[in-house]
Protein backbone atom coordinates (compact mmCIF):
# COMPACT_ATOMS: atom_id res chain seq x y z
CA UNK A 1 0.00 0.00 0.00
CA UNK A 2 1.02 3.57 -0.73
CA UNK A 3 2.91 4.80 2.34
CA UNK A 4 1.04 8.11 2.43
CA UNK A 5 -2.38 6.46 2.33
CA UNK A 6 -1.28 4.07 5.05
CA UNK A 7 -0.37 6.96 7.34
CA UNK A 8 -3.59 8.80 6.57
CA UNK A 9 -5.67 5.72 7.41
CA UNK A 10 -3.62 5.15 10.53
CA UNK A 11 -4.03 8.71 11.76
CA UNK A 12 -7.77 9.03 11.05
CA UNK A 13 -8.34 5.62 12.64
CA UNK A 14 -6.47 6.75 15.78
CA UNK A 15 -8.23 10.10 16.11
CA UNK A 16 -11.76 8.83 15.45
CA UNK A 17 -11.11 5.93 17.83
CA UNK A 18 -9.78 8.01 20.67
CA UNK A 19 -12.73 10.44 20.42
CA UNK A 20 -15.41 7.77 20.78
CA UNK A 21 -13.59 5.42 23.21
CA UNK A 22 -15.56 5.95 26.41
CA UNK A 23 -19.01 6.24 24.87
CA UNK A 24 -18.42 3.26 22.61
CA UNK A 25 -17.26 1.18 25.57
CA UNK A 26 -20.41 2.11 27.51
CA UNK A 27 -22.51 1.24 24.45
CA UNK A 28 -20.85 -2.14 24.00
CA UNK A 29 -20.75 -3.08 27.66
CA UNK A 30 -24.35 -2.14 28.46
CA UNK A 31 -25.48 -3.39 25.06
CA UNK A 32 -24.00 -6.83 25.63
CA UNK A 33 -26.06 -7.23 28.80
CA UNK A 34 -29.14 -6.03 26.92
CA UNK A 35 -29.33 -9.28 24.95
CA UNK A 36 -30.63 -10.72 28.22
CA UNK A 37 -32.88 -7.77 29.01
CA UNK A 38 -36.02 -9.82 29.65
CA UNK A 39 -34.16 -12.50 31.59
CA UNK A 40 -32.60 -9.81 33.83
CA UNK A 41 -36.04 -8.29 34.44
CA UNK A 42 -37.56 -11.67 35.29
CA UNK A 43 -34.63 -12.43 37.56
CA UNK A 44 -34.94 -9.09 39.34
CA UNK A 45 -38.68 -9.38 39.97
CA UNK A 46 -38.66 -13.11 40.52
CA UNK A 47 -41.28 -13.56 37.82
CA UNK A 48 -40.11 -16.57 35.78
CA UNK A 49 -41.78 -16.73 32.41
CA UNK A 50 -44.58 -19.23 32.12
CA UNK A 51 -45.66 -20.01 28.58
CA UNK A 52 -48.89 -21.64 29.72
CA UNK A 53 -49.98 -18.32 31.25
CA UNK A 54 -49.78 -16.75 27.82
CA UNK A 55 -51.39 -19.67 26.07
CA UNK A 56 -54.33 -19.76 28.45
CA UNK A 57 -54.56 -16.03 29.07
CA UNK A 58 -58.09 -14.96 29.79
CA UNK A 59 -58.38 -12.02 27.39
CA UNK A 60 -61.93 -11.30 28.37
CA UNK A 61 -60.96 -10.84 32.01
CA UNK A 62 -58.01 -8.76 30.89
CA UNK A 63 -60.07 -6.29 28.89
CA UNK A 64 -62.75 -6.26 31.59
CA UNK A 65 -60.14 -5.27 34.18
CA UNK A 66 -58.93 -2.42 32.01
CA UNK A 67 -62.48 -1.43 31.12
CA UNK A 68 -63.45 -1.13 34.78
CA UNK A 69 -60.37 0.95 35.48
CA UNK A 70 -60.14 3.32 32.52
CA UNK A 71 -63.35 2.90 30.51
CA UNK A 72 -62.28 1.45 27.17
CA UNK A 73 -65.23 2.51 25.05
CA UNK A 74 -64.04 4.64 22.12
CA UNK A 75 -60.34 4.11 22.82
CA UNK A 76 -57.66 2.45 20.72
CA UNK A 77 -56.26 -0.29 22.93
CA UNK A 78 -52.90 -1.86 22.07
CA UNK A 79 -51.43 -4.93 23.73
CA UNK A 80 -47.78 -5.73 23.23
CA UNK A 81 -47.00 -9.37 23.90
CA UNK A 82 -43.54 -10.47 24.91
CA UNK A 83 -42.62 -14.09 24.64
CA UNK A 84 -40.01 -13.97 27.38
CA UNK A 85 -42.11 -12.13 29.93
CA UNK A 86 -45.02 -12.84 32.19
CA UNK A 87 -46.54 -9.40 31.79
CA UNK A 88 -48.20 -7.74 28.82
CA UNK A 89 -47.67 -4.08 28.02
CA UNK A 90 -50.70 -2.07 26.96
CA UNK A 91 -51.30 1.46 25.83
CA UNK A 92 -54.59 3.30 25.55
CA UNK A 93 -55.36 6.28 23.35
CA UNK A 94 -57.61 9.08 24.62
CA UNK A 95 -61.26 8.10 24.36
CA UNK A 96 -63.57 9.49 21.70
CA UNK A 97 -66.38 9.02 24.18
CA UNK A 98 -66.86 12.47 25.68
CA UNK A 99 -68.91 11.09 28.58
CA UNK A 100 -65.91 9.24 30.02
CA UNK A 101 -64.40 11.42 32.79
CA UNK A 102 -61.03 9.75 32.20
CA UNK A 103 -61.23 10.27 28.41
CA UNK A 104 -58.05 12.34 28.21
CA UNK A 105 -55.87 9.81 30.07
CA UNK A 106 -53.50 7.78 27.90
CA UNK A 107 -51.86 5.20 30.12
CA UNK A 108 -48.91 3.06 29.05
CA UNK A 109 -48.42 0.29 31.58
CA UNK A 110 -47.88 -3.40 32.11
CA UNK A 111 -50.19 -6.00 33.56
CA UNK A 112 -48.89 -9.17 35.17
CA UNK A 113 -50.79 -12.18 33.82
CA UNK A 114 -50.45 -14.05 37.10
CA UNK A 115 -51.00 -11.41 39.78
CA UNK A 116 -53.05 -8.98 37.60
CA UNK A 117 -50.90 -6.13 38.96
CA UNK A 118 -50.95 -3.01 36.81
CA UNK A 119 -47.83 -0.84 36.85
CA UNK A 120 -46.97 2.22 34.87
CA UNK A 121 -43.73 2.47 32.95
CA UNK A 122 -41.68 4.15 35.67
CA UNK A 123 -42.84 1.71 38.35
CA UNK A 124 -42.14 -1.34 36.24
CA UNK A 125 -38.74 0.03 35.16
CA UNK A 126 -36.08 -2.53 35.85
CA UNK A 127 -32.37 -3.19 35.49
CA UNK A 128 -32.70 -4.89 32.09
CA UNK A 129 -34.57 -1.89 30.75
CA UNK A 130 -32.00 0.44 32.31
CA UNK A 131 -28.99 -1.28 30.74
CA UNK A 132 -30.83 -1.49 27.42
CA UNK A 133 -31.61 2.21 27.42
CA UNK A 134 -28.17 3.17 28.74
CA UNK A 135 -26.67 1.47 25.71
CA UNK A 136 -28.12 4.10 23.40
CA UNK A 137 -27.56 6.88 25.94
CA UNK A 138 -31.28 7.47 26.56
CA UNK A 139 -30.63 8.93 30.06
CA UNK A 140 -28.84 11.84 28.34
CA UNK A 141 -32.15 12.87 26.73
CA UNK A 142 -33.57 13.81 30.11
CA UNK A 143 -30.69 16.16 30.99
CA UNK A 144 -32.61 19.05 29.52
CA UNK A 145 -35.23 20.11 27.00
CA UNK A 146 -33.43 20.19 23.67
CA UNK A 147 -36.37 19.62 21.36
CA UNK A 148 -34.64 16.51 20.02
CA UNK A 149 -33.31 13.32 21.63
CA UNK A 150 -29.73 14.45 22.35
CA UNK A 151 -28.64 11.10 23.77
CA UNK A 152 -29.82 9.14 20.71
CA UNK A 153 -28.08 11.55 18.35
CA UNK A 154 -24.81 11.35 20.30
CA UNK A 155 -24.98 7.55 20.35
CA UNK A 156 -25.84 7.54 16.63
CA UNK A 157 -22.90 9.83 15.91
CA UNK A 158 -20.66 7.47 17.87
CA UNK A 159 -21.99 4.53 15.83
CA UNK A 160 -21.19 6.36 12.61
CA UNK A 161 -17.68 7.35 13.72
CA UNK A 162 -17.25 3.74 14.79
CA UNK A 163 -18.11 2.65 11.26
CA UNK A 164 -15.47 5.06 9.97
CA UNK A 165 -12.91 3.73 12.47
CA UNK A 166 -13.74 0.15 11.45
CA UNK A 167 -13.15 0.84 7.75
CA UNK A 168 -9.90 2.75 8.32
CA UNK A 169 -8.80 0.13 10.86
CA UNK A 170 -9.16 -2.70 8.37
CA UNK A 171 -7.31 -0.64 5.74
CA UNK A 172 -4.40 -0.04 8.15
CA UNK A 173 -4.20 -3.73 8.94
CA UNK A 174 -4.86 -4.78 5.33
CA UNK A 175 -1.50 -6.27 4.44
CA UNK A 176 -1.31 -8.35 7.61
CA UNK A 177 -4.88 -9.63 7.65
CA UNK A 178 -4.03 -13.06 6.30
CA UNK A 179 -0.62 -13.56 7.91
CA UNK A 180 -1.74 -12.33 11.36
CA UNK A 181 -5.27 -13.68 11.34
CA UNK A 182 -4.94 -15.89 14.42
CA UNK A 183 -1.79 -14.30 15.80
CA UNK A 184 -2.09 -14.03 19.58
CA UNK A 185 1.11 -13.86 21.63
CA UNK A 186 -0.09 -13.61 25.24
CA UNK A 187 3.32 -14.25 26.78
CA UNK A 188 5.16 -11.50 24.92
CA UNK A 189 5.60 -7.98 26.24
CA UNK A 190 2.43 -6.02 27.00
CA UNK A 191 2.53 -3.86 23.91
CA UNK A 192 2.50 -6.95 21.70
CA UNK A 193 -0.38 -8.41 23.68
CA UNK A 194 -2.42 -5.24 23.18
CA UNK A 195 -1.55 -5.03 19.51
CA UNK A 196 -2.68 -8.63 18.94
CA UNK A 197 -5.86 -8.09 20.90
CA UNK A 198 -6.64 -4.96 18.96
CA UNK A 199 -5.80 -6.12 15.45
CA UNK A 200 -6.46 -9.87 15.39
CA UNK A 201 -9.52 -9.78 17.61
CA UNK A 202 -10.72 -6.67 15.78
CA UNK A 203 -10.47 -8.38 12.40
CA UNK A 204 -12.04 -11.63 13.58
CA UNK A 205 -15.02 -9.79 15.05
CA UNK A 206 -15.13 -7.27 12.20
CA UNK A 207 -18.30 -8.58 10.50
CA UNK A 208 -20.14 -8.47 13.81
CA UNK A 209 -18.85 -4.99 14.70
CA UNK A 210 -19.68 -3.74 11.21
CA UNK A 211 -23.27 -4.93 11.45
CA UNK A 212 -23.64 -3.20 14.80
CA UNK A 213 -22.15 0.07 13.57
CA UNK A 214 -24.51 0.19 10.58
CA UNK A 215 -27.68 -0.97 12.32
CA UNK A 216 -26.92 1.20 15.36
CA UNK A 217 -26.56 4.30 13.20
CA UNK A 218 -29.77 3.30 11.40
CA UNK A 219 -31.83 3.08 14.60
CA UNK A 220 -30.62 6.38 16.02
CA UNK A 221 -29.89 8.86 13.24
CA UNK A 222 -31.45 7.62 10.01
CA UNK A 223 -34.66 9.49 10.83
CA UNK A 224 -33.25 13.04 10.70
CA UNK A 225 -30.59 12.23 8.09
CA UNK A 226 -32.41 10.06 5.59
CA UNK A 227 -36.10 9.80 6.39
CA UNK A 228 -36.89 13.48 6.81
CA UNK A 229 -35.20 14.65 3.58
CA UNK A 230 -36.75 11.76 1.64
CA UNK A 231 -40.21 12.57 2.95
CA UNK A 232 -39.72 16.23 2.11
CA UNK A 233 -38.30 15.91 -1.40
CA UNK A 234 -39.49 12.53 -2.63
CA UNK A 235 -42.79 11.79 -0.92
CA UNK A 236 -44.24 15.32 -1.02
CA UNK A 237 -44.19 15.69 2.77
CA UNK A 238 -46.52 12.73 3.17
CA UNK A 239 -45.31 10.71 6.17
CA UNK A 240 -48.03 8.12 5.58
CA UNK A 241 -46.07 6.92 2.53
CA UNK A 242 -43.18 6.00 4.83
CA UNK A 243 -45.60 4.33 7.24
CA UNK A 244 -46.99 2.16 4.48
CA UNK A 245 -43.48 1.27 3.21
CA UNK A 246 -42.43 0.26 6.70
CA UNK A 247 -45.67 -1.58 7.36
CA UNK A 248 -46.65 0.69 10.26
CA UNK A 249 -49.68 2.03 8.52
CA UNK A 250 -52.99 1.54 10.27
CA UNK A 251 -56.18 2.34 8.44
CA UNK A 252 -58.30 4.89 10.19
CA UNK A 253 -61.96 4.18 10.66
CA UNK A 254 -64.61 6.76 11.55
CA UNK A 255 -66.02 6.57 15.07
CA UNK A 256 -69.55 5.25 14.85
CA UNK A 257 -70.78 6.56 18.19
CA UNK A 258 -73.05 3.53 18.68
CA UNK A 259 -71.96 0.82 21.13
CA UNK A 260 -71.52 -2.76 20.00
CA UNK A 261 -73.03 -5.75 21.83
CA UNK A 262 -70.56 -6.84 24.51
CA UNK A 263 -69.98 -10.34 23.16
CA UNK A 264 -68.53 -8.98 19.92
CA UNK A 265 -65.64 -7.31 21.75
CA UNK A 266 -64.20 -10.58 23.06
CA UNK A 267 -60.50 -10.43 22.26
CA UNK A 268 -60.02 -14.12 23.04
CA UNK A 269 -62.20 -15.10 20.10
CA UNK A 270 -60.11 -13.10 17.61
CA UNK A 271 -56.77 -14.35 18.94
CA UNK A 272 -57.99 -17.96 18.75
CA UNK A 273 -59.30 -17.41 15.23
CA UNK A 274 -56.02 -15.83 14.05
CA UNK A 275 -54.00 -18.68 15.53
CA UNK A 276 -56.25 -21.18 13.83
CA UNK A 277 -55.63 -19.50 10.48
CA UNK A 278 -51.86 -19.16 10.99
CA UNK A 279 -51.03 -22.31 12.94
CA UNK A 280 -50.59 -22.62 16.69
CA UNK A 281 -46.81 -22.17 16.55
CA UNK A 282 -47.19 -18.54 15.47
CA UNK A 283 -46.47 -16.04 18.21
CA UNK A 284 -48.78 -13.08 18.59
CA UNK A 285 -46.68 -9.93 18.89
CA UNK A 286 -49.37 -7.28 19.26
CA UNK A 287 -53.10 -6.77 19.23
CA UNK A 288 -54.78 -3.46 18.53
CA UNK A 289 -58.43 -2.83 19.26
CA UNK A 290 -59.41 0.28 17.33
CA UNK A 291 -62.43 2.17 18.72
CA UNK A 292 -63.11 -0.45 21.36
CA UNK A 293 -66.76 -1.36 21.84
CA UNK A 294 -67.93 0.88 19.01
CA UNK A 295 -70.03 -0.09 16.00
CA UNK A 296 -66.95 0.50 13.89
CA UNK A 297 -64.52 -1.41 16.13
CA UNK A 298 -61.64 -3.14 14.30
CA UNK A 299 -59.23 -5.72 15.66
CA UNK A 300 -55.67 -5.78 14.27
CA UNK A 301 -53.54 -8.79 15.20
CA UNK A 302 -49.89 -9.08 14.29
CA UNK A 303 -47.80 -12.20 14.63
CA UNK A 304 -44.53 -13.83 13.78
CA UNK A 305 -43.84 -17.30 12.44
CA UNK A 306 -41.48 -19.37 14.61
CA UNK A 307 -37.83 -18.68 13.71
CA UNK A 308 -37.26 -22.36 13.04
CA UNK A 309 -39.66 -22.26 10.09
CA UNK A 310 -39.13 -18.75 8.77
CA UNK A 311 -36.52 -16.12 9.44
CA UNK A 312 -38.81 -13.37 8.43
CA UNK A 313 -42.44 -14.52 8.57
CA UNK A 314 -44.62 -11.63 9.61
CA UNK A 315 -48.36 -12.06 9.87
CA UNK A 316 -51.20 -9.59 10.11
CA UNK A 317 -54.96 -9.80 10.14
CA UNK A 318 -57.70 -7.21 10.56
CA UNK A 319 -61.24 -8.01 11.67
CA UNK A 320 -64.28 -5.83 11.56
CA UNK A 321 -65.85 -6.54 14.93
CA UNK A 322 -69.50 -5.84 14.03
CA UNK A 323 -69.77 -8.79 11.66
CA UNK A 324 -66.51 -10.62 12.37
CA UNK A 325 -65.37 -10.18 8.76
CA UNK A 326 -61.68 -10.26 7.84
CA UNK A 327 -60.84 -7.04 5.98
CA UNK A 328 -57.08 -7.54 5.63
CA UNK A 329 -54.97 -10.66 5.89
CA UNK A 330 -51.33 -11.57 5.48
CA UNK A 331 -50.20 -15.06 6.41
CA UNK A 332 -46.75 -15.77 7.87
CA UNK A 333 -46.02 -18.24 5.07
CA UNK A 334 -46.38 -15.59 2.34
CA UNK A 335 -43.04 -14.69 0.78
CA UNK A 336 -41.77 -11.45 2.30
CA UNK A 337 -41.18 -8.46 0.10
CA UNK A 338 -37.70 -6.95 -0.22
CA UNK A 339 -38.54 -3.98 1.98
CA UNK A 340 -40.03 -6.19 4.70
CA UNK A 341 -36.87 -8.28 4.72
CA UNK A 342 -34.55 -5.27 5.00
CA UNK A 343 -36.63 -3.60 7.66
CA UNK A 344 -36.94 -6.76 9.72
CA UNK A 345 -33.33 -7.83 9.26
CA UNK A 346 -32.04 -4.65 10.89
CA UNK A 347 -33.80 -5.66 14.11
CA UNK A 348 -33.11 -9.37 13.95
CA UNK A 349 -29.38 -8.85 13.38
CA UNK A 350 -28.96 -6.15 16.01
CA UNK A 351 -30.99 -7.86 18.73
CA UNK A 352 -29.74 -11.38 18.04
CA UNK A 353 -33.32 -12.56 17.66
CA UNK A 354 -32.56 -15.85 15.98
CA UNK A 355 -31.06 -19.09 17.16
CA UNK A 356 -32.19 -18.73 20.78
CA UNK A 357 -29.77 -18.55 23.69
CA UNK A 358 -26.85 -19.90 21.64
CA UNK A 359 -26.86 -16.80 19.45
CA UNK A 360 -27.35 -14.50 22.39
CA UNK A 361 -24.44 -15.93 24.34
CA UNK A 362 -22.20 -15.70 21.27
CA UNK A 363 -23.38 -12.14 20.70
CA UNK A 364 -22.62 -11.31 24.33
CA UNK A 365 -19.08 -12.69 24.05
CA UNK A 366 -18.47 -10.81 20.81
CA UNK A 367 -19.82 -7.64 22.45
CA UNK A 368 -17.42 -7.98 25.35
CA UNK A 369 -14.58 -8.68 22.93
CA UNK A 370 -15.58 -5.34 21.35
CA UNK A 371 -14.85 -3.76 24.75
CA UNK A 372 -11.45 -5.48 24.75
CA UNK A 373 -10.68 -4.15 21.27
CA UNK A 374 -11.59 -0.63 22.41
CA UNK A 375 -9.45 -0.67 25.56
CA UNK A 376 -6.45 -2.32 23.90
CA UNK A 377 -6.62 0.38 21.23
CA UNK A 378 -6.36 3.08 23.88
CA UNK A 379 -3.40 1.29 25.48
CA UNK A 380 -1.58 1.09 22.14
CA UNK A 381 -2.26 4.79 21.67
CA UNK A 382 -0.72 5.57 25.07
CA UNK A 383 2.32 3.31 24.80
CA UNK A 384 3.09 4.50 21.28
CA UNK A 385 3.34 8.07 22.60
CA UNK A 386 5.31 7.30 25.74
CA UNK A 387 8.65 8.07 24.13
CA UNK A 388 11.59 10.21 25.18
CA UNK A 389 11.27 12.62 22.27
CA UNK A 390 7.69 13.50 23.19
CA UNK A 391 7.48 16.56 25.49
CA UNK A 392 6.88 15.79 29.16
CA UNK A 393 3.72 17.91 29.24
CA UNK A 394 2.11 15.97 26.41
CA UNK A 395 3.01 12.64 27.96
CA UNK A 396 1.45 13.70 31.24
CA UNK A 397 -1.72 14.74 29.47
CA UNK A 398 -1.90 11.41 27.62
CA UNK A 399 -1.42 9.42 30.82
CA UNK A 400 -4.14 11.39 32.57
CA UNK A 401 -6.55 10.99 29.68
CA UNK A 402 -6.07 7.23 29.72
CA UNK A 403 -6.46 7.25 33.52
CA UNK A 404 -9.83 8.92 33.21
CA UNK A 405 -10.91 6.68 30.33
CA UNK A 406 -9.93 3.52 32.19
CA UNK A 407 -11.51 4.65 35.46
CA UNK A 408 -14.85 5.23 33.74
CA UNK A 409 -14.76 2.12 31.55
CA UNK A 410 -13.31 -0.51 33.86
CA UNK A 411 -15.48 0.51 36.82
CA UNK A 412 -18.58 -0.43 34.82
CA UNK A 413 -17.96 -4.09 35.60
CA UNK A 414 -18.10 -3.94 39.43
CA UNK A 415 -20.80 -1.24 39.32
CA UNK A 416 -23.04 -3.33 37.06
CA UNK A 417 -22.48 -6.37 39.25
CA UNK A 418 -23.36 -4.33 42.35
CA UNK A 419 -26.51 -3.00 40.68
CA UNK A 420 -27.73 -6.60 40.24
CA UNK A 421 -27.50 -7.00 44.01
CA UNK A 422 -29.09 -3.60 44.60
CA UNK A 423 -32.17 -4.42 42.50
CA UNK A 424 -32.43 -7.87 44.04
CA UNK A 425 -32.62 -6.35 47.51
CA UNK A 426 -35.14 -3.73 46.40
CA UNK A 427 -36.80 -5.04 43.22
CA UNK A 428 -39.62 -2.51 43.08
CA UNK A 429 -37.49 0.63 43.28
CA UNK A 430 -38.34 1.70 39.76
CA UNK A 431 -36.48 4.16 37.60
CA UNK A 432 -35.40 6.66 40.27
CA UNK A 433 -33.83 4.02 42.45
CA UNK A 434 -31.87 2.40 39.61
CA UNK A 435 -30.72 5.77 38.24
CA UNK A 436 -29.54 6.92 41.65
CA UNK A 437 -27.82 3.70 42.55
CA UNK A 438 -26.08 3.12 39.23
CA UNK A 439 -24.91 6.64 38.43
CA UNK A 440 -23.81 7.62 41.93
CA UNK A 441 -21.94 4.36 42.49
CA UNK A 442 -20.33 4.69 39.09
CA UNK A 443 -19.21 8.25 39.84
CA UNK A 444 -17.91 7.27 43.28
CA UNK A 445 -15.97 4.21 42.09
CA UNK A 446 -14.45 6.06 39.12
CA UNK A 447 -13.42 8.98 41.36
CA UNK A 448 -11.90 6.67 43.97
CA UNK A 449 -9.94 4.86 41.27
CA UNK A 450 -8.66 8.18 39.91
CA UNK A 451 -7.64 9.42 43.34
CA UNK A 452 -6.06 6.33 44.81
CA UNK A 453 -5.06 4.09 41.92
CA UNK A 454 -2.82 6.06 39.62
CA UNK A 455 -1.60 2.92 38.02
CA UNK A 456 -3.33 1.19 35.13
CA UNK A 457 -2.40 -2.30 36.25
CA UNK A 458 -3.76 -1.80 39.74
CA UNK A 459 -6.91 -0.17 38.39
CA UNK A 460 -7.51 -3.12 36.12
CA UNK A 461 -6.79 -5.65 38.86
CA UNK A 462 -9.02 -3.95 41.40
CA UNK A 463 -11.96 -3.77 39.00
CA UNK A 464 -11.55 -7.42 38.02
CA UNK A 465 -11.32 -8.54 41.63
CA UNK A 466 -14.18 -6.36 42.89
CA UNK A 467 -16.38 -7.46 39.99
CA UNK A 468 -15.58 -11.11 40.62
CA UNK A 469 -16.33 -10.95 44.34
CA UNK A 470 -19.59 -9.05 43.84
CA UNK A 471 -20.48 -11.27 40.89
CA UNK A 472 -20.11 -14.49 42.84
CA UNK A 473 -22.41 -13.01 45.52
CA UNK A 474 -25.20 -12.39 42.98
CA UNK A 475 -26.57 -15.97 42.82
CA UNK A 476 -26.14 -16.25 46.59
CA UNK A 477 -28.07 -13.04 47.29
CA UNK A 478 -30.76 -14.21 44.88
CA UNK A 479 -31.01 -17.51 46.75
CA UNK A 480 -31.21 -15.78 50.13
CA UNK A 481 -33.77 -13.18 49.05
CA UNK A 482 -36.08 -15.19 46.81
CA UNK A 483 -35.32 -18.79 47.79
CA UNK A 484 -34.61 -19.52 44.13
CA UNK A 485 -31.20 -21.09 44.57
CA UNK A 486 -29.62 -22.41 41.41
CA UNK A 487 -30.82 -25.98 42.06
CA UNK A 488 -34.33 -24.76 42.90
CA UNK A 489 -34.57 -22.81 39.62
CA UNK A 490 -33.22 -25.82 37.80
CA UNK A 491 -35.77 -28.16 39.35
CA UNK A 492 -38.66 -25.80 38.65
CA UNK A 493 -37.56 -25.02 35.10
CA UNK A 494 -37.14 -21.27 35.71
CA UNK A 495 -34.73 -21.06 32.81
CA UNK A 496 -34.50 -17.26 32.80
CA UNK A 497 -33.61 -16.97 36.48
CA UNK A 498 -31.22 -19.89 36.17
CA UNK A 499 -29.54 -18.26 33.17
CA UNK A 500 -28.70 -15.06 35.06
CA UNK A 501 -27.35 -16.91 38.11
CA UNK A 502 -25.20 -19.24 36.02
CA UNK A 503 -24.11 -16.34 33.87
CA UNK A 504 -22.73 -14.52 36.91
CA UNK A 505 -21.15 -17.66 38.28
CA UNK A 506 -19.24 -18.17 35.03
CA UNK A 507 -18.38 -14.50 34.57
CA UNK A 508 -17.17 -14.06 38.14
CA UNK A 509 -14.99 -17.17 37.99
CA UNK A 510 -13.50 -16.21 34.60
CA UNK A 511 -12.67 -12.66 35.69
CA UNK A 512 -11.22 -14.05 38.92
CA UNK A 513 -8.90 -16.29 36.91
CA UNK A 514 -7.96 -13.26 34.79
CA UNK A 515 -7.21 -11.30 37.96
CA UNK A 516 -5.01 -14.09 39.27
CA UNK A 517 -3.13 -14.44 35.96
CA UNK A 518 -2.54 -10.69 35.76
CA UNK A 519 -1.34 -10.59 39.36
CA UNK A 520 1.07 -13.50 38.86
CA UNK A 521 2.47 -11.98 35.73
CA UNK A 522 3.06 -8.64 37.41
CA UNK A 523 4.71 -10.29 40.43
CA UNK A 524 7.03 -12.27 38.16
CA UNK A 525 7.94 -9.08 36.36
CA UNK A 526 8.67 -7.28 39.63
CA UNK A 527 10.81 -10.17 40.84
CA UNK A 528 12.74 -10.20 37.57
CA UNK A 529 13.35 -6.50 37.96
CA UNK A 530 14.56 -6.90 41.55
CA UNK A 531 17.12 -9.57 40.66
Amino acid sequence: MNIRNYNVFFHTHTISGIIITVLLYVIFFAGSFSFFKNEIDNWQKNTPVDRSLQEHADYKALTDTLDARYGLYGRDVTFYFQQDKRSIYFSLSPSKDTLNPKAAERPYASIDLKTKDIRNYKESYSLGEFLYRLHFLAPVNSLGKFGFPLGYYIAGGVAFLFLFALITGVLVHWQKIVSNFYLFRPWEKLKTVWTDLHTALGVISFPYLFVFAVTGAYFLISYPLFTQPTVKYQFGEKTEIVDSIMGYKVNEYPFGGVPLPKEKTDLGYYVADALQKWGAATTISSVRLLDYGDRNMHVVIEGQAPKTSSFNGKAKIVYQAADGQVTERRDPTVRSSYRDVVNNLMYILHFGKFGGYGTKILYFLLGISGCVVIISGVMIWLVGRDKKHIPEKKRKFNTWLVHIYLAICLSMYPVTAASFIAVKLYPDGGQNYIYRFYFWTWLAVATLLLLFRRNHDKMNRDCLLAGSIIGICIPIVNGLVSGNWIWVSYRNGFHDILLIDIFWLFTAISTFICWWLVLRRQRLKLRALAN
Partner: protein
Amino acid sequence: MPANKKHLTASPWQRLLKISAGLFGGYLVTLSFHFLLMRFLDKGDVYVTMFFTGFIAWAGLMVLAFLARKGWKIWVFYLSLSLLFLSPYLIDLMYVK
Protein backbone atom coordinates in the same frame (compact mmCIF):
# COMPACT_ATOMS: atom_id res chain seq x y z
CA MET B 1 4.16 3.97 17.03
CA PRO B 2 1.99 6.86 15.84
CA ALA B 3 1.48 7.72 12.18
CA ASN B 4 4.30 9.56 10.44
CA LYS B 5 3.53 13.29 10.51
CA LYS B 6 5.31 13.79 7.22
CA HIS B 7 2.33 12.26 5.40
CA LEU B 8 -0.41 14.10 7.30
CA THR B 9 -2.13 17.40 6.61
CA ALA B 10 -0.26 20.15 8.42
CA SER B 11 -2.43 23.19 7.66
CA PRO B 12 -5.45 23.49 9.97
CA TRP B 13 -7.48 25.05 7.12
CA GLN B 14 -6.85 22.11 4.84
CA ARG B 15 -7.76 19.79 7.68
CA LEU B 16 -11.00 21.66 8.35
CA LEU B 17 -11.86 21.56 4.65
CA LYS B 18 -11.24 17.81 4.48
CA ILE B 19 -13.23 17.03 7.62
CA SER B 20 -16.15 19.18 6.47
CA ALA B 21 -15.98 17.70 2.96
CA GLY B 22 -16.11 14.19 4.43
CA LEU B 23 -18.98 14.98 6.78
CA PHE B 24 -21.18 17.35 4.80
CA GLY B 25 -20.00 16.77 1.25
CA GLY B 26 -20.03 13.01 1.75
CA TYR B 27 -23.55 13.19 3.15
CA LEU B 28 -24.69 15.31 0.23
CA VAL B 29 -23.25 12.88 -2.32
CA THR B 30 -24.84 9.92 -0.50
CA LEU B 31 -28.27 11.54 -0.33
CA SER B 32 -28.22 12.85 -3.91
CA PHE B 33 -27.09 9.46 -5.22
CA HIS B 34 -30.03 7.72 -3.55
CA PHE B 35 -32.37 10.42 -4.82
CA LEU B 36 -31.06 9.69 -8.30
CA LEU B 37 -31.85 6.00 -7.82
CA MET B 38 -35.31 6.91 -6.57
CA ARG B 39 -35.89 8.64 -9.87
CA PHE B 40 -35.47 5.41 -11.81
CA LEU B 41 -36.23 2.61 -9.36
CA ASP B 42 -38.99 1.91 -6.88
CA LYS B 43 -38.82 4.72 -4.34
CA GLY B 44 -39.80 2.58 -1.40
CA ASP B 45 -37.18 -0.07 -2.16
CA VAL B 46 -34.42 2.51 -2.55
CA TYR B 47 -35.56 4.19 0.65
CA VAL B 48 -35.18 1.02 2.76
CA THR B 49 -31.90 0.16 1.02
CA MET B 50 -30.57 3.56 2.05
CA PHE B 51 -30.80 2.45 5.70
CA PHE B 52 -27.59 0.51 5.29
CA THR B 53 -26.03 1.63 2.00
CA GLY B 54 -26.45 5.25 3.12
CA PHE B 55 -24.21 4.91 6.14
CA ILE B 56 -21.69 2.66 4.41
CA ALA B 57 -21.36 4.99 1.40
CA TRP B 58 -21.11 8.05 3.62
CA ALA B 59 -18.36 6.50 5.75
CA GLY B 60 -16.50 5.44 2.59
CA LEU B 61 -16.71 8.96 1.19
CA MET B 62 -15.38 10.29 4.48
CA VAL B 63 -12.35 8.02 4.20
CA LEU B 64 -11.85 9.19 0.62
CA ALA B 65 -11.97 12.85 1.64
CA PHE B 66 -8.92 12.38 3.86
CA LEU B 67 -6.95 10.86 1.00
CA ALA B 68 -7.29 14.04 -1.08
CA ARG B 69 -4.21 16.22 -1.48
CA LYS B 70 -6.14 19.47 -1.15
CA GLY B 71 -9.29 20.06 0.86
CA TRP B 72 -10.94 22.42 -1.61
CA LYS B 73 -10.46 19.93 -4.44
CA ILE B 74 -12.43 17.25 -2.65
CA TRP B 75 -15.14 19.82 -1.85
CA VAL B 76 -15.39 20.73 -5.53
CA PHE B 77 -15.44 17.04 -6.46
CA TYR B 78 -18.21 16.19 -3.99
CA LEU B 79 -20.30 19.23 -4.89
CA SER B 80 -20.11 18.56 -8.62
CA LEU B 81 -20.91 14.88 -8.03
CA SER B 82 -23.99 15.89 -6.02
CA LEU B 83 -25.08 18.30 -8.75
CA LEU B 84 -24.61 15.58 -11.34
CA PHE B 85 -26.76 13.15 -9.34
CA LEU B 86 -29.43 15.79 -8.86
CA SER B 87 -29.35 16.91 -12.49
CA PRO B 88 -32.62 15.18 -13.51
CA TYR B 89 -34.37 17.12 -10.78
CA LEU B 90 -32.59 20.37 -11.69
CA ILE B 91 -33.60 19.95 -15.32
CA ASP B 92 -37.17 19.48 -14.14
CA LEU B 93 -36.98 22.67 -12.14
CA MET B 94 -35.71 24.62 -15.14
CA TYR B 95 -37.94 23.31 -17.90
CA VAL B 96 -41.03 21.86 -16.37
CA LYS B 97 -43.41 24.29 -14.83
